[in-house]
């Protein structure tokens, strides 16, 4: 510990060089934390998804609908406590580029089964009472500067919803209470869409709430058996599995983001290692003098390593702090809503600082070895 001053002194020796190294480590940690946060966003959506809710879709693919009679059949399956249903509306708000999820739901049961959709009792009541009303997420409201009472018009994107426009009135703004529900969705009445559309009595998926999560496998089998060999066979899974298979469709994100993160770390190792080596080379004479004065080789080694770690922890903290500050839910809107919300959290930031320390340690290893193995006589004879 008594050497801490010495370490700080040598770090300040060339301020510009130290600053550049700090900044390059900061950038690496910033990128790393941001990438980590994206992956966490996907995992969180899966993790937070309920395993007490079962989702039933058509076995062929979720783009096909099933008749409303399926809802009552599923309600009658033992082990099912509550049922709701929804349709993917796929409406277009002004321009196809304005992508967000807009879903027709059976409002009462849906809000009952999804306590994650947090909305005030007054707004909820107003939404339930207005057949053309809608609930919009707090994120969407920010994106389009909407307010309660605003009228918005969606163009139907899927042929069986007809060709005429669908006007809605915003009756409430919901907040998301967990990663299972994002704040970028618009919900409205299934009945309104059903009446106006070209095809009637169709639901996209049915959600069943289980009495007991351990019964998930048995109940989902029971549900699928009910519709086996009918024209509308189903496939039932827990919400968690459903979310996981959806994320897996985007491709191997773990591998892609992981390799980019690795490249980031390696790049920084090259940059930081190079700088450390430079600064050791510059101090050759100085180190030789210290050795002559009686400093052990191991002390010299630790001094150089310490300097590397100090510099990169400062860089890591800076990068993590900036990432924590600017990478939040509104970041990367360009993703168009298909990517779950993500933001750098404290844990990502701490990991980032840790990564910074590791980078510093690794980068300093070779220069530190160089410094500790210095031959005093040669070094003193050398003119810097």
């Amino acid at each position, binding site marked *: 510990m008594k050497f801490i001053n010495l370490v700080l002194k040598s770090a300040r020796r060339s301020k*510009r*060089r130290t600053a*550049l*190294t700090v*900044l*390059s480590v900061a*950038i*690496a940690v*910033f*990128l790393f934390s941001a*990438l980590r946060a994206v992956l966490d966003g996907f995992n969180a959506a899966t993790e937070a998804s309920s395993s007490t809710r079962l989702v039933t879709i058509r*076995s*062929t*693919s*979720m*783009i*096909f609908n099933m008749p409303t009679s399926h809802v009552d059949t599923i309600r009658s399956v033992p082990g099912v406590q509550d049922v709701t249903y929804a349709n993917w509306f*796929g409406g277009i708000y002004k321009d*196809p580029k304005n992508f967000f999820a807009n879903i027709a739901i059976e409002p009462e049961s849906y809000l009952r089964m999804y306590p994650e959709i947090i909305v005030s009792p007054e707004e909820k009541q107003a939404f339930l009472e207005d057949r053309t009303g809608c609930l919009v997420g707090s994120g969407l409201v920010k994106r389009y500067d909407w307010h309660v009472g605003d009228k918005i018009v969606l163009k139907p*994107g*899927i*042929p069986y919803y007809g060709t005429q426009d669908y006007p809605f009135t915003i009756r409430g703004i919901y907040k998301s209470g967990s990663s299972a529900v994002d704040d970028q969705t618009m919900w409205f009445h299934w009945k309104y869409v059903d009446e106006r559309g070209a095809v009637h009595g169709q639901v996209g998926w049915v959600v069943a709430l289980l009495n007991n999560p351990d019964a998930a496998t048995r109940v989902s089998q029971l549900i699928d058996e009910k519709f086996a060999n009918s*024209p509308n*066979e189903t*496939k039932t899974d827990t919400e968690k599995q459903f979310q*996981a*298979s959806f994320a*897996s*469709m*985007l*491709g*191997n994100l773990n591998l*892609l983001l992981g*390799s*980019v993160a690795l*490249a*980031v770390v*390696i*790049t*920084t190792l*090259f*940059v930081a*290692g*190079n*700088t450390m*080596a*430079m600064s050791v080379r*510059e101090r050759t004479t100085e180190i030789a003098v210290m050795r002559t004065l009686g400093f052990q080789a191991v002390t010299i080694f630790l001094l150089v390593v310490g300097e590397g770690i100090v510099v990169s922890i400062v860089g890591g903290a800076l990068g993590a702090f900036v990432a924590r500050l600017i990478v939040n839910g509104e970041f*990367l809107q*360009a*993703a*168009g809503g*298909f990517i779950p919300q993500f933001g750098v959290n404290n844990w990502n930031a701490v990991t980032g600082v840790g990564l910074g320390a590791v980078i510093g340690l690794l980068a300093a290893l070779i220069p530190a070895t160089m410094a500790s193995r210095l031959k005093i006589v040669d070094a003193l004879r050398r*003119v810097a």
Partner: protein
Amino acid sequence: MGLIANYNLRSMIVRKGTAAMTAMGIAMVVAVFVMTLAIAQGFRSTLVASGSPENAIILRKGSTSENLSAVLKNQLPIIESLPQIAHGPDGRPLASAELLVIISLPRVTDNQPANVPLRGVGPKAYEVRSTLKFVEGRRFTPGTREINVGQQALTRFKGLALGSDVKFGSATWKVAGIFTAEDASFESEIWGDVDLMMPAFQRGGYQSVTAKMTDPSVFESLDAAIAADPRLDLKPQREPEYYADQSATTTTLIRVFATFVTVILSIGAVFGAMNTMYAAVAYRTREIGTLRALGFSRLRIVTAFLAESVALALVGGAIGCVLALPVHGLSTGTMNMASFSELAFKFRITPGLLLGGLLFSALMGAVGGLLPAIRAARIPVARALREI
């Protein structure tokens, strides 16, 4: 320039350790740049390869993709009778009315269900899309429950081998043939008879008509003819343009990601280059003084150090390109946002992309070298010469 270029080159070799580290830093950035953009490139060219300039795809007016389009059964004969549509040797019009639905099949790698595009096609589909070639088996026989499977779909999803039975749409279908399509998106699809697909999926009409035109130049008159017919609320698009549009969302997403990552990463590498060049200038203060005393102008010194930095970065860029090359041709898949189904594609590194990587590295070298080079030129001659 000979002397000074030689001097800079040799100085770089003298400090080969530092130079190599800096170059490697830049190499990593360029490798990430090339690899991520190779994904976007591969995805895009897979879709673009699906379009042929001779073909037009006819969708409902206002529809941006096949999934969202509808073509009525009685509209097909009207389209087929248009004079701009080419005819086969048998005198029949080369137009294929199609239905595109998505079915769910387990992936080979993780057994997870994934969305696979299933295309119901007309009897002339294989004449309209001449790039399709059968590697195994034969075309499906119209009127039977037979299907053809694209090569990529075969390798990515379970149970699609030649001769196997596949269950979907409350019926069982037999795989009669496997086809390739010169890397086009059709290789990720399953094809069958549209007239059997419609009842299987309770559809009353087609979604699109793809037709071969007598000549690419008749497109405008085809467009006018369809617009003029009140029975057709449809709009033709040139096939390559249509497929380029289909790739836009995903390609933009990947490009935004790639740019974000590489730009930020490159700042780190530029700092590295800057450090190296500052150190280089500091070590060689005396030499720079000598050069100036010999009569080399400040501008010459600036350009010399800038050139050294750019050369160093270019070496790094070239290494980065080489590091990225092995991913070329690697096959992967992702969800195509426009069709909501999986599309298999290959990483694609084009000469243009490599050139872009090299230019990018040169830019990093120039930015990183500029300040140190100016510093070198500003050193007062007398003081520089006095330094040991």
